[in-house]
């Protein structure tokens, strides 16, 4: 990022961190966690211990980081090197990102930015229409459809956690990630000891990965209707039954069809169920028991929006509630071919023009690489 842009964003972040101490707290068991941060145009600083809110606020004011992270793991010695930390446990975390959902709306809010001449294109082309370069940065701007589809994944995840895995509602915290998705943190003592492999199997359960027909009563031969799952069953067997039969009255007919169609056809049905009912989380995040994860309350430098907790997920609007930077006007050179919506106001499209925008919108464009400080 060019120096002028970095300075503008840094000053907006500093103002936020100074004014909104109320939103930024260390998580529980802070002294046992590893903290890390990044500054603009600089590498990652890790293995830090931050004992309380005061120390955190001091760091934020002193360093004005572009991004701040905190481990999901608890250690005896969080400030030592990875091999010496002495891992004690870790919260169960999930990352739901709209870009992993591959929604049809994505093409409407994705911008291809030429690496050589900065030309912006809305539709994918194999080479830049201006300079012929074939290298592009792909930038996605906020989209309400992406957010509402991601929310559906969060709801599915919370349902599995509470009904199948016996996690209490109050042990689940849902956060807007600060860009295009949601982070879910589970603090349940039963699960915090699980290692990476165990979490990988747990995430496969949540995603409905690796299900075999035998587990749902379909063998390669000699199938009987009694072994198929029923409507009332709990867990995935019940979910699969409700999906396949759609209603109790249809169950006998569908059962006959399933048994006649056989093993391979059922396998195809399970694949379809995985696509529609499995929760689309990023498995790498859940499996990682040493990850430093974006700190709640901090700003995401990919957008200038904050990672904040969603108390009421259904009504949550990240482009209103997580857009917390100042609103005094700033002039920037904006080059944003798609209209964006923040705080219920529309901005753009702009074609390489100097515009005066509220700070939150100016910073959003700079963070997305769709504008430059003047």
């Amino acid at each position, binding site marked *: 990022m060019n120096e002028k842009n970095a300075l503008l964003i840094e000053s907006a972040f500093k103002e936020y961190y100074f004014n909104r101490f109320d939103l930024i707290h260390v998580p529980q068991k802070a002294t046992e966690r590893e903290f890390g941060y990044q500054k603009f145009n600089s590498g990652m600083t890790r293995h830090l211990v931050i004992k309380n809110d005061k120390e955190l606020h001091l760091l934020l004011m002193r360093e004005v980081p572009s991004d701040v992270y905190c481990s999901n793991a608890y250690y005896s010695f969080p400030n030592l090197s990875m091999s010496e930390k002495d891992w004690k446990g870790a919260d169960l975390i999930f990352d739901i990102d709209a870009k992993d959902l591959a929604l049809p709306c994505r093409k409407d809010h994705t911008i291809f930015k030429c690496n050589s001449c900065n030309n912006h294109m809305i539709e994918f082309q194999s080479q830049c229409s201006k300079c012929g370069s074939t290298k592009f940065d792909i930038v996605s701007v906020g989209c309400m459809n992406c957010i509402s589809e991601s929310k559906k994944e969060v709801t599915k995840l919370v349902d599995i956690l509470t*009904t*199948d895995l*016996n996690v209490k509602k109050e042990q689940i915290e849902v956060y807007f990630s600060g860009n295009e998705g949601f982070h879910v943190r589970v603090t349940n003592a039963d699960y915090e000891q699980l290692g990476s492999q*165990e979490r990988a199997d747990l995430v*496969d*359960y949540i995603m409905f*990965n690796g299900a*075999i027909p035998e587990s749902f009563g379909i063998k390669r031969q000699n199938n009987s209707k009694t072994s198929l799952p029923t409507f009332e069953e709990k*867990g995935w067997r019940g979910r699969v039954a409700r999906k396949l039969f759609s209603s109790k009255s249809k169950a006998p007919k569908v059962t006959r069809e399933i048994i006649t169609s056989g093993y391979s056809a059922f396998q195809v049905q399970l694949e379809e169920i995985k696509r529609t009912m499995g929760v689309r989380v990023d498995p790498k995040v859940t499996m990682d028991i040493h990850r430093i994860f974006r700190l709640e309350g901090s700003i995401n430098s990919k957008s200038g929006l904050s990672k904040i907790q969603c108390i009421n997920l259904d009504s949550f609007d990240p482009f209103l509630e997580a857009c917390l930077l100042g609103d005094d006007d700033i002039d920037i050179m904006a080059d944003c071919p798609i209209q964006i919506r923040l705080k219920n106001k529309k901005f753009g499209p702009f074609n390489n023009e100097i515009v005066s925008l509220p700070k939150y919108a100016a910073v959003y464009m700079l963070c997305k690489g769709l504008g430059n400080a003047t």
Partner: protein
Amino acid sequence: MLKIGAKDLAKYPFLTEAGEYLRNTGLSLEQLGDPDWQPIVEKAYGRIVVASSGQIYGSDLEALDNDSELLSFLVAIILLKSAGIATLIRRFSLAESRRAEKYLQQDLWISRDKKNLELPLKIIQDLFAVNVSIDNEDFVIKVPDYLQRAVHFHEKEWKLVNRRVANGLVYLSAHETVRLIRAELGEYINGKIQSVNVDSIPQSFRHRVEDLVALAKKFSDTTYVSSEYPPCVKHGIEVLEKGENLPHSGRFLLATYLLSKGQTVDQIAPLFKNAPDYNERTTKYQLAHISGSSGSGTKYQCPSCEKLRSESLCFAIPDCDGIINPVQFGKKRKIQ
């Protein structure tokens, strides 16, 4: 309080209660040296010989005197500790755990209807800190307890997604419940034997101890370790050489690594000869499967360093720097 009888101890002679039972009989080690007790020493010796050949020692609990079952187990431990041969101890632990597994499964199954599950469930709870309870026809354990054990199995049916799960519990049959704790049962019995101290033994035991030393020679073929092997592979070979049990993932590493280095199934199979559960036919069949020459035809690749680290099978040394798979070990080293 749960009453554990002589018959229970014959089935599960490794329980702490066994020592107490023996104390109550007033029998001492010196007394066991008396010629009258020689049949017990012979029975104990036979128990070890059966175990060392990879078989499970069978007891007829209905026909036999239950005390001799318990005593022969305890004398077997004394003989094994006196001989001090790790291979024999491992083989004995493995065979005894399979034997106990069989009884545990029966007890869970038979007492299920009578709701008299106290003993088998207590054994599982006390020994492995796993709380198993019963729900209608099934046994249930908490999801995290299940995951910590089931991840070591590679069959798809053990994946959580293929189990019945509800309210944080996994539903299992008696057989599956016992299968889940198999490895721990072996470890437990082995740990018990390791913790026993034998100062002196009666004269009448000595002959059989010498026989055990002679028996162990059969298993002590040495295997050549090339200096080019990475430390993880060396570790696996060493474990097998000692006659200790190498987990499935470790055996898989050895097989895939050596196959990738151009060794044949026939060349690799003898390496596993010292494993406590060695069976030539099974080993060759499994090696052929891994090599892709039988079964689905998939040739399995050597697991990555990352995977080995997560399985605690990585023993990295500075020479491992910059490699992501054990097969790169030699090559990288030559470049340096």
